[in-house]
């Protein structure tokens, strides 16, 4: 059965187009709930800005990645705004990447 780490690895392929850092290392994934019996996964995630015009696009990309996982038939992505995302949620490696010219 697919694990949380498998999901995070796959989601690392989705890059924030503006910041050029993947959505996992940006700290946008809040919560992953895997239900093996129903073969479904629910994710709570956020975006760097509440009004991000790409929210539908990113949500679609995440859903597509989840549906492509073995053992998953159904995937739901909830965009949430609590807790509010801030820059302290970015992983150290990603911060280093952002700081490079």
């Amino acid at each position, binding site marked *: 059965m697919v694990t949380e780490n498998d999901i995070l690895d796959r989601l690392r392929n989705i890059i924030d187009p503006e910041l050029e850092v993947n959505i996992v290392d940006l700290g946008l994934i809040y919560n992953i709930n895997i239900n093996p019996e129903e073969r479904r996964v629910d994710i709570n995630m956020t975006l760097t*800005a509440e*009004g991000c*015009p790409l929210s539908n696009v990113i949500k679609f990309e995440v859903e597509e990645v989840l549906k492509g996982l073995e053992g998953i038939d159904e995937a739901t992505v909830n*965009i949430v705004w609590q807790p509010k995302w801030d820059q302290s949620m970015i992983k150290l490696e990603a911060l280093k990447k952002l700081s490079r010219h």
Partner: protein
Amino acid sequence: MSAANTTDSSINIALRHIKTAAVFLPVFFYLMFMDAGSFQAYFFMNTVIISLTHVFTLGFILMVIMGASYMLLPVALGVKIAYEKLFFPVYYAFTGSLVIFVTGMHFFSPVFIALGGSLLFISIGTYNINILFSLKKVKKWDYTSLAILFAYIYLAIGILIGLYMSLLFYFNIGGQYIFYFLIDHIYIMFIGFVLMLFTGIFYRLLPMFYMTKTPPRYLWLTDFILLNAGVAAVILSSFFARGVLFDAGSAFLCTGILIFSGIFFYLMAARIKKKLDITTFYLYAGFFYLILSVLAGILILGLFSRTITQNYGIYYSFGFVGLFGFIGMAIIGFLHKIFPFLISLKQFEKMKKGAYAGLFRNMREKYLQFVDLILFVTGVLAGAYSLLELDIILIKITAAVLFFASLLLFFNLLSMERK
């Protein structure tokens, strides 16, 4: 705020406006080339120059602002635009009335000037009311929402003065105050409307694009008060034959603009995303020119009026640096960010898969984009110098270079959409 606030129609109308503006920009430089000789006359009641400036200010600046606002206001403020059904009628009415107005002004036809001015007032006024109605639903009144509200109030006042002046050409009424009205119109539109709008939008977009902090409250509040006090003092001074009130207003505005520039450099210096993209170069160039235009403004205020009258090229140079050097650079810079987003969102609505990859392709640095940047940035300096000297040959050469640069921009935008 949800993504639902950005709708299909707001994406399509934003793209339509931006593409139309990208057509008006080369048209402006073509006309600047053709009408270069008109710069030899003083700007007041110089109808060819009035026509030319409106091709740029309405055809390019306001066209982009209108289109981008349909997309960015929901993003920045978390509200839906009140009446989406007005998008396309307003667009067609605005474009048509602009053509009538600038044609009337260029060939000095009072009927066309008055007709174009009235239609512009109706179309821009309708847009303005639509935005003001949308602002009623704003929940959080912070700097951005306040600045946007004030900007659109100034726009309403500015177009009202514009309507009055255009009717003057036909009805020939109240002409003795027209110079004051003209100066008020310029200050209200470019500081009250455009600069106020830019300050509000910048403090939202910079954190989004470059992960900057937001400006300290005491700083933006001081800036907000200074800019509004400056515009108010300038308008009020019209009733007292300018004098000290005008000088005080100008001093407030200069200080306010310098504080705004300082905030920009402060935020950008401490940004988390350090990578310099094409937009950052345009923005830095834009703020350099903004400070330059403030210094030119101080020079104009400080010089004896006789010196100015003998060399009114300083007005043209000042206006060109402020309008094209700052506003033009900032808009072109942000277009390199906003346009690829709009294209991807449009593609996403059609086919879903692949839109995301397309976004990366369009945002990738391109060699020609940097050639265009160099042409635009050096073009501003060349334009400032040639207009200051009123050297017609140099003005024509500058206009030709900037015409070429604006064509490159146009084809760059088109190429993004076709990929």
